[in-house]
C-alpha cells in the first residue's frame, strides 16, 4: 500500500510495515527505554509555517508553495513567554521557509529583546526574492545565526534535490552574507551550512565533508562559513514517499538499523529541546511533529517547566535516522 503523506497514521503504518527490529526494542536492548529529556531544555524549535518557495525531494515537512499553514503572532507570543518563564536560551526557527511568515521579523525582534540566541533556518534562495532581500541586513543587525541548507558543493547534486537554479541562487546569497561578515573569520555573525545526502544513503563523516565544502566553496566562489552540519535524510514526508516508490524503503531502514550507534542515544536532540508546530502543539522534535507523535504537555498555552524536563520522549522507527553512525541532529553529527 502506498504511503499517504498527508496522513501521519499512514506514515506510521508504513514505518511499522518494514521488517526491522523496532526502535523501542533497540532502546530496550541497551536499557535506554523509555528515553527521557534532560533536566533542562535549552532549545525551543518552532516551525512557523509549512509554506516554502521550494519543494525539495527530501523534505520531511512536505513544504512547498501550495501549503498554507502559518503560525500566528499570538502563538509566537506564547512561545516567547514560555522561553522567558523557563529560561530556554535558544530560539531555533524553522519551516517551510520561515521568511514567508509575515511575523518572522517580529518574532526575531521580540526574542532578541529578551536576550535569546536566535537561529533561523534558511533555504538561501528565498533571500533573492526582492520582498525578502533586506533580511540579511536584518539578521546581521539582530545577530541571528543563519543555518543554511546547501546539500552539496556542486550545482548538479544540489539542483537535483532542490530544483533547477537553486545552487546558483544559493551561491549569490552566500556571497551577500559573507559581505555582511557572516561566516568570516573573526566575525560574531555565524553562518552554518547543512549537507544532506542526495538519496537513500547515510551522510559521510562530518569533518571530511566539511573540509570538502570549505575547499570547494572557497576555491570556486570565495565563500567561507563557520561549520557544516551533516544531517541524514529521515523516512518521513516526501522522503518517505521517495523511499517507497523507488523500492528503497526496506534497504534504507535496514541500513539505518545496521548503523545504530548506542553512543548517540544520550546526545539526541530531543533530550535538549522542545518543538512547537505552527498551531502551537508541542512535540519532541520536528519529525515527530510531522508524524503527529505528540508529547506532554500538549500545547504551548499549557506548558509548565516541570512537564518539559525529564519528559518521556515519543519514539518510533524513524528515530533510527538520529542514531545511525555518528548520529544526526539539527546541529549535525551527535558524536
Amino acid at each position: 500500500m502506498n504511503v499517504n503523506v498527508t496522513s501521519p497514521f499512514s506514515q506510521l503504518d508504513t514505518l511499522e510495515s518494514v521488517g526491522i527490529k523496532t526502535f523501542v526494542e533497540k532502546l530496550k536492548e541497551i536499557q535506554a527505554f523509555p528515553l527521557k529529556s534532560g533536566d533542562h531544555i535549552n532549545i525551543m524549535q518552532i516551525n512557523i509555517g509549512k509554506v516554502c518557495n521550494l519543494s525539495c525531494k527530501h523534505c520531511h515537512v512536505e513544504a512547498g508553495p501550495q501549503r498554507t499553514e502559518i503560525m500566528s503572532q499570538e502563538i509566537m507570543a506564547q512561545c516567547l513567554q514560555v522561553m522567558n518563564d523557563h529560561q530556554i536560551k535558544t530560539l531555533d526557527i524553522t519551516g517551510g521557509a520561515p521568511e514567508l511568515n509575515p511575523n518572522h521579523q517580529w518574532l526575531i525582534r521580540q526574542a532578541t529583546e529578551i536576550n535569546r540566541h536566535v537561529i533561523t533556518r534558511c533555504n538561501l534562495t528565498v533571500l533573492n526574492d526582492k520582498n525578502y532581500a533586506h533580511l540579511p541586513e536584518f539578521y546581521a543587525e539582530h545577530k541571528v545565526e543563519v543555518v543554511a541548507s546547501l546539500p552539496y558543493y556542486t550545482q548538479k547534486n544540489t539542483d537535483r534535490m532542490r530544483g533547477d537554479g537553486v545552487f546558483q541562487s544559493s551561491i549569490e546569497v552566500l556571497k551577500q552574507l559573507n559581505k555582511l561578515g557572516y561566516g568570516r573569520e573573526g566575525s560574531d555573525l555565524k553562518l552554518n551550512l547543512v549537507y544532506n545526502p542526495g538519496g537513500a544513503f547515510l551522510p559521510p563523516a562530518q569533518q571530511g565533508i566539511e573540509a570538502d565544502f570549505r575547499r570547494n566553496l572557497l576555491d570556486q566562489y570565495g565563500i567561507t562559513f563557520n561549520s557544516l552540519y551533516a544531517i541524514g535524510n529521515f523516512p518521513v514526508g516526501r522522503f518517505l514517499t521517495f523511499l517507497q516508490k523507488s523500492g528503497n524503503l526496506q534497504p534504507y531502514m535496514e541500513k539505518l538499523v545496521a548503523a545504530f550507534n548506542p553512543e548517540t542515544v544520550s546526545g539526541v536532540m530531543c533530550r535538549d529541546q522542545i518543538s512547537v508546530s505552527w498551531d502551537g502543539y508541542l512535540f519532541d522534535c520536528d519529525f515527530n511533529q510531522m508524524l503527529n507523535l505528540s508529547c506532554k504537555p500538549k500545547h504551548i498555552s499549557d506548558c509548565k517547566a516541570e512537564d518539559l524536563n525529564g519528559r518521556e520522549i515519543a519514539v518510533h522507527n524513524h528515530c533510527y535516522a538520529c542514531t545511525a553512525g555518528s548520529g544526526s541532529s539539527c546541529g549535525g553529527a551527535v558524536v
Partner: protein
Amino acid sequence: MDTYYNPADLAKFSTMGEEAPDLWQKFMAYYGAVFENGALTAREKALIALAVAHAIQCPYCIDAYTQGALEKGANEAQMTEAIHVACAIRGGAALVHGVQMKNVAKKIGF
C-alpha cells in the same frame, strides 16, 4: 537458481564464516582495518575499491562500493573518474601485451 547473481545474496556474505569461523574473523578484521582512515582517507579507499570492483566486474562489490563511496561524501563525477582509471588500466594492460605479440611475430618472421 534463476541467476548466479542475486542482490539479496550480498547480505548472506557472513555465511561464509559458518564452516571456517577463524579464517572468516581474520579476514573481516583485516578487511575492516584496510578501509579505515590511514595514509589514504577512507573515501580514497572507497573510490579505489569501486574502481577495482569494476575491473574485476563484481556486482556485489559495485553495489556495496557505489553506496560506500557516496556515504564517504564522494560524488558521481569522482566515482566516474575512478571507473575510468580501472578502464584505462584494463585497456592499457590489453594494449601493452601487444608488445608480446610483436615480439613473437618478430621472432618467427623474416
